[in-house]
């Protein structure tokens, strides 16, 4: 399978500039600096690259929205606040091949005209801050950063800004607030960052993987990049797989692989751990709808489901899910969906910034009801109440955290209502056990 980002990730010494360059590093930058900035944006447009942070918005289009008023600085900010449960791909990339991100940052900064770019990284990744700062220092010493980069006349500095523990700062306007030294309260949009972003200047915020993908795009051309993958899911995507699988880890896929292959083949997840059966999966980070095994592997139409944007969302929320950030969480037959949903509700309650009322109040309410159901104190009417609360949060909040909190609850009830009911009907047993209905999933044929 083609690898564009992680091909050299496991090579010894790739963390350092010398080895990185020996493996073809910084060639894209040299090429890019000879191009006109707008042509780079054009290449990114042609490549069909979509934002890898979760929303999947076309990156080239986002770049083209950047306002360019005269005498106003523009900023590129890299979103490395990776906090979506199930997602740890950016960490892997930054930890092992930091120069790929730095190279992508310099090329993107050049394309957007940003002379001062920031990497906002979650504070908990403290050792990666050091790795990145070291990589930046190395790049500077070799003339890839600083004044007049490689004689092109382009000046650029990159700074690493650590966060301090707030999931909400992954939302781009909350991230900008945080970068300005404030509480991570998402801004009310419009205006969008492309017009008024960091310190009120036009700003582009892109995910780590998105920026890293610019390097191979420049190297191979947008048109070549677009040939990889299928439909509007072009290029490669990093998937961080976790949960009850034999081989958790970060994998680079080209989006033509089926979900079934991804879970069961030895090249990737290596099947369900301990010989258990697949019960359910959250394919794109904890916010996206959970799918039971049958709907995960096949769409409602009975077609094979693939690991790409379109196929994963086939059927809408009724029978589908989302690609999201690529955080692939697998649950085996022993896992309790109610308990899992409860931990997620706890997470979103804890991470709500508290600005708008549906999220501030609704996330806590959902958590409390889920805790009751999980511990055998729930009522049948609680299930309907939960449904109603999530429907009143969704779409009515300032930022997408409200949706992110509502969707997991909605999907759990949609697909696993009997498990909620089981908890209500078997209060004693649900207090003793961590899980509800074992053997929920229909038995599935393993890929040989």
């Amino acid at each position: 399978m083609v690898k564009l980002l992680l091909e050299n990730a496991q090579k010894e010494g790739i963390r350092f500039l010398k080895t990185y360059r020996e493996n073809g590093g910084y060639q894209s930058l040299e090429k890019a600096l000879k191009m006109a900035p707008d042509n780079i944006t054009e290449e990114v447009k042609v490549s069909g690259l979509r934002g890898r942070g979760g929303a999947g918005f076309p990156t080239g289009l986002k770049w083209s929205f950047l306002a360019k008023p005269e005498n106003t600085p523009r900023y590129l900010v890299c979103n490395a606040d990776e906090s979506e449960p199930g997602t740890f791909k950016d960490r892997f990339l930054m930890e092992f091949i930091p120069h790929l991100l730095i190279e992508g940052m310099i090329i993107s900064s050049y394309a957007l005209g940003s002379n001062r770019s920031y990497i906002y990284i979650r504070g908990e990744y403290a050792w990666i801050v050091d790795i990145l700062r070291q990589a930046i220092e190395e790049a500077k010493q070799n003339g890839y950063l600083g004044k007049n980069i490689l004689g092109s006349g382009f000046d650029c500095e990159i700074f690493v800004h650590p966060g301090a523990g707030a999931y909400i700062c992954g939302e781009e306007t909350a991230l900008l607030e945080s970068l300005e030294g404030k509480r991570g309260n998402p801004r009310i949009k419009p205006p969008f960052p492309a017009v008024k972003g960091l310190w009120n200047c036009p700003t582009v915020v892109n995910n780590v993987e998105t920026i890293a993908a610019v390097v191979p795009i420049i190297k191979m051309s947008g048109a070549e990049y677009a040939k990889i993958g299928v439909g509007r899911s072009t290029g490669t995507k990093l998937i961080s797989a976790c949960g009850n699988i034999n081989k958790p880890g970060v994998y680079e896929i080209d989006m033509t692989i089926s979900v079934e292959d991804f879970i069961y083949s030895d090249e990737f997840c290596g099947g369900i751990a301990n010989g258990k059966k697949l019960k359910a999966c959250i394919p794109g980070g904890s916010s996206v709808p959970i799918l039971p095994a049958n709907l995960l592997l096949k769409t409602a139409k009975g077609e094979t489901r693939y690991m790409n944007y379109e196929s994963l969302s086939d059927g809408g929320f009724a029978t589908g899910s989302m690609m999201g950030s690529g955080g692939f969480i697998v649950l085996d037959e022993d896992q309790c969906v109610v308990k899992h949903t409860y931990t997620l509700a706890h997470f979103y309650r804890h991470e709500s910034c508290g600005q708008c009322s549906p999220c501030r109040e609704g996330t806590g309410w959902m958590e409390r009801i889920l805790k009751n159901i999980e511990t055998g104190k729930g009522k049948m009417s609680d299930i309907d109440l939960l449904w109603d609360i999530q429907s009143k949060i969704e779409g009515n909040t300032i930022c997408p955290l409200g949706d992110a909190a509502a969707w997991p609850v909605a999907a759990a009830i949609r697909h696993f209502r009997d498990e909620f009911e089981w908890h209500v009907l078997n209060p004693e047993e649900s207090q003793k056990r961590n899980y509800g209905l074992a053997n929920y999933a229909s038995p599935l044929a393993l890929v040989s």
Partner: protein
Amino acid sequence: MVFSEEKMNEVNRLIASYPQGKQKSAILPVLHLAQEVNGGWLSTEAMDYVASLLQLDPIEVYEVATFYSMYNLHPVGKYIFEVCQTGPCMIKGSDDIIAYIKEKLNIGIGETTKDGMFTLKAVECLGACGYAPMMQMGKTYREHLTREKIDQIIESCRSMNN
């Protein structure tokens, strides 16, 4: 609390990474430094000091320090076990790890051992879901935790302190 000359250089370097007049942006990294110097937590005095360094009203610092979960607003132990309890870690047995640490150190979540050595915190997703169960200890992550690993970690902390 005051920063040493070396720390002050660090602060100035941080401030310089933002445009002129935007020193407020340095608040998160400078608070991290203050917490480190102040024994792992932010006292009112420490926050007021940061406010004066960055020319901010103290309330602006309080607002920020109370928002982010990495800042401790009460004294903590020398070693902080921050065990992740979110979904992916939960299904890999984080409950058991937390229960074991509680039992072993005889403290509850959010509490510190009497000797001031260990604090236990249950935290939310740290981005190590594939290496679950896990916890953060200072600047590093301890992953694929088992009871035996917890024993070893506690033992090595104690021996380092002796």
